[in-house]
């Protein structure tokens, strides 16, 4: 559960990403695959090494889903239900991988926002993304 101020921090950061979902998403995935190569096992369809066009396309999809979450912070379960079903029935990404993605997300935010990436933003986005991961893996069993 995010407070009003926490939601403001989420929205504030999202404003800087919105419109650039493909670029941020591609960098996120590239960092994930470079730093944690075992995560590539879930993305064979992107090629190995991953194709740049595919990275941008898939990165956009991932970040657009984060955008959906940002717009429905008070109703994440309903808004992400189809994605939760997808992860439970089809993708079945082991839950231990989400913290790896979140670490890379923090690095992307930090490296792009730099001086603007306050400690308040870091804690709120860690909380927000962790909550997102919980919703996506909740239907696993």
């Amino acid at each position, binding site marked *: 559960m995010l407070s009003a101020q926490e939601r403001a921090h989420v929205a504030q950061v999202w404003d800087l990403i919105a419109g650039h979902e493909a670029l941020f998403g591609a960098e996120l995935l*590239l960092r994930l695959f*470079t730093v944690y190569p075992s995560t590539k096992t879930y993305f064979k369809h992107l090629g190995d090494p991953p194709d740049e066009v595919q990275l941008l396309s898939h990165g956009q999809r991932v970040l657009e889903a984060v955008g959906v979450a940002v717009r429905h912070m008070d109703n994440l379960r309903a808004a992400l239900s189809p994605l939760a079903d997808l992860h439970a029935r089809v993708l079945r990404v082991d839950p231990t991988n989400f913290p790896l993605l979140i*670490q890379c997300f*923090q*690095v992307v935010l930090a*490296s792009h926002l*730099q001086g603007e990436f306050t*400690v308040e933003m*870091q*804690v709120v986005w860690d909380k927000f993304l962790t909550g997102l991961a919980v919703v996506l893996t909740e239907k696993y069993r």
Partner: protein
Amino acid sequence: MVHLTGEEKSAVTALWGKVNVEEVGGEALGRLLVVYPWTQRFFESFGDLSTADAVMKNANVKKHGKKVLASFSEGLKHLDDLKGTFAALSELHCDKLHVDPENFRLLGNVLVVVLARHFGKEFTPELQSAYQKVVAGVATALAHKYH
């Protein structure tokens, strides 16, 4: 032991040469205490940790952060024998400080984010990868003597 290529080792060392160890240490420890507030359990004697601002400005946090990072800095000179380098500290963290080794992993991750914040685009995926290996190696070395 950390398995870095010669290129990765050079990149890690080159970047570290530009790091203000005192400043980055305080920032990393401060961010750890704010982002993962349960880690404050080890620092009850540090004074005011009630708000993010209080934590980041806390003199004890800065002082301790500097100490922790100076130690990490030493470790960077001995990447081939992290377990030996951190053996005594590992015993201390187990026997006297009673710190769950998970905290070393958390701090390592926060340090990587702080480096990304300072260096921006220069902190490439490859450099992140090398540093994540280093912090993981240090965390493992610090946990090595636990019993």
